[in-house]
């Protein structure tokens, strides 16, 4: 059964340029999806629509058969869908640990010992306690990417949307992160949707979806 379904969605930019046209697709739990395509193919736009940050010009997106237009977009992003942004979008005045805890707070989910959970999540993406206590600006790009992943995992969403999640990571860490996503899909029955340029990431995914010319007007 699909957890996210797109029905004939289109996205027009500035009322003139069609980014995506009449796209339909269904995403299921327990699978890792890779959305690939050329630059400006609309991959990030598609991810924004799936996360509720952008609304399709036409068509509808459903989450558990419920139209996104009928779900509070803030609740949707804080409880059901975790987004890993390409530019991380972390709060610079907070530490890595505090960024993760803040996400748990915003979700409103009851999580015991949030500090410990945050440290464990950071550790799972390869960040030790010393790095966890540092402010974001004192972390490298790769470390910030991992904090962003840990933040998304913090409130245990059903769907994980990631825009180039391994873009700034070395080969080993890329493997490690991909393993985390695969584990989440297989063991925790999550739906993981990745936008990537990396053939390696695409090959490790269960489903590879390429945004083709036919999708773009």
């Amino acid at each position, binding site marked *: 059964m699909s957890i996210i379904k797109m029905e004939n969605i289109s996205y027009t930019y500035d009322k003139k340029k069609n980014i995506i046209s009449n796209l339909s697709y269904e995403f299921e739990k327990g699978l890792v999806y890779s959305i690939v395509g050329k630059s400006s193919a609309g991959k990030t736009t598609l991810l*924004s629509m799936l996360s509720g940050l952008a609304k399709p010009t036409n068509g509808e997106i459903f989450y558990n058969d419920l139209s996104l237009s009928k779900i509070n977009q*803030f609740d949707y992003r*804080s409880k059901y869908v975790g987004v890993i*942004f390409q530019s991380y*979008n*972390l709060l610079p*005045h907070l530490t890595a640990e*505090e960024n993760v805890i803040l*996400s748990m707070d*915003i979700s409103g989910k009851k999580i015991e010992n949030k500090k410990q959970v945050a440290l464990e999540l950071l550790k799972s993406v390869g960040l030790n306690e010393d790095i966890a206590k540092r402010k974001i600006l004192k972390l490298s790009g790769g470390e910030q990417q991992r904090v962003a992943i840990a933040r998304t995992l913090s409130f245990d969403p059903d769907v994980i949307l990631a825009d180039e999640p391994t873009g700034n990571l070395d080969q080993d860490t890329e493997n490690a992160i991909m393993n985390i996503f695969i584990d989440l899909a297989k063991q925790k029955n999550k739906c993981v949707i990745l936008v990537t340029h990396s053939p390696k990431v695409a090959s490790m995914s269960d489903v590879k979806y390429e945004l083709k010319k036919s999708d773009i007007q």
Partner: protein
Amino acid sequence: MYIFKNSLKSIIRNKTRNILIFVLVLLIAISACIALSIKNSADLARETMSNSLSITAQINTNRQKIMGEQPNLEDKSQMKDMLSQRLSIDELKNYATSEYVDNFYYTCSVSLNSSSDMEVYETTNSNVPEFGGKEMGGPRGGMQNQGDISIVGYNSHDGMTTFIDGENVISDGSVFDEGSTDNSCVISYELATLNDFSVGDTITLSNPNKETETYKFIISGIFKNETSDVYANQIYTSYESLKNIIDSSSENAEEIENDMGMTMSTALMDTTNGFFVFSNIDNYENFCKDVETMGLDTDTYTVSSSDVNAFEQSLLPLNNLSKFTMIFFVVILIIGALILIVFNIFSIREKKYEIGVLTAIGMKKSKVATQFLLEIFIVTMCAILAGTAIGALASKPVGNYLLDEQIQSIQTDMQNQNKNFGGNFQGTPPSMGGDMPDDNKAPNSENGAPENPGVAGNNYITDIDTTTDISVLLSLMGMSLILTLLSGSVGIISILKYDPLKILSNRT
């Protein structure tokens, strides 16, 4: 709870901006605290004084209205007649039945001539109480001869305010009995010494219009005034004794020609006055309304009290100060709010990215706005509390300094005005506006009014015990809330309008 924690973190991590806001609000709070404390003190002083003040009032002709409505010269005689109208004792007694009146007494006064074997004291003070002057009614007609001795008859000892106040003190004998008709009287120590009078002696006085019409008074007491000789040529007796004399004079009156060739009666012309006593200002003010419902013709008569004028005048510098500080407070508040709004516009621009991230990860805009407001509120509240503490300590010395400046300014104006009038200015003091009742311009010490309210200024409240109490604190808290909402409103509008995707895309 996490919103509060986030606000605290944000405050601590944006020190420079928040210190600037803190200092600005601190200055506003100090000014506001001082202004509110001074206003509080003025209100408290007014309340305390009005509760403890005993007020004496009279019903006199409404000179202002009569003169204002009769500006033509042809109406001069009519105006004179209107001005000389008096309510009878019975009418005054009727108004005294008002529930607001605490006590009522009345006097009558006439002027008589001393006999040939009696000397009159030459007073050194030019400001002799004139029982025939404006305050006490004035001689009707103005054609009669004036005597050199004033006789005042009291129906009650309550009316003898100079004795009650201790200005005049019986040094020998005792005061006449209330309601007595035996012509017993009290005379001044000066008159007694000059004429070698003592208690039990009889003095003879005559009608200044008819020298053969004489009246005898028995001295029951001699009074002394340690500070002034203005009462030296005054004799006090009971109302009833004096009334008998006036009635007798009226019965035996003749028609004579005066120096100007005009016909006049030899009957003694008396001036009768009723005095209403109130326990506080509220009762006085209620009485002013009550007499209208009781039928007083307010076109002709008005209720006035020199005590109320003196009371208002004593609070004048404090009220002025309170008014000025409140204006200052409002100006500071407006300027402060504007500066804070500008600060917050810049602040929200700085926070645009943070707002974008928070909303992108699912934080509701209302919660983001709450966090933003909370940040301003915490900084503002801390500054208000610190400002209140400093303001509370500073309000007394600053308040007293400003009050002193205010008094000096008023006194300088008065002195200059007085100097312009050759040292005898009796008009409206500066800053009192033009609404002072006419009777305050001719004060009469017998009525308990200040000796010279236009000049002295000695009755002012010169020291204030400024109180920064819970009401001031609550007002400042309210101010803090208003400042927060005002200055934060721009930020909230921005937050509600922001689109997280746009913010984050622009940054990328």
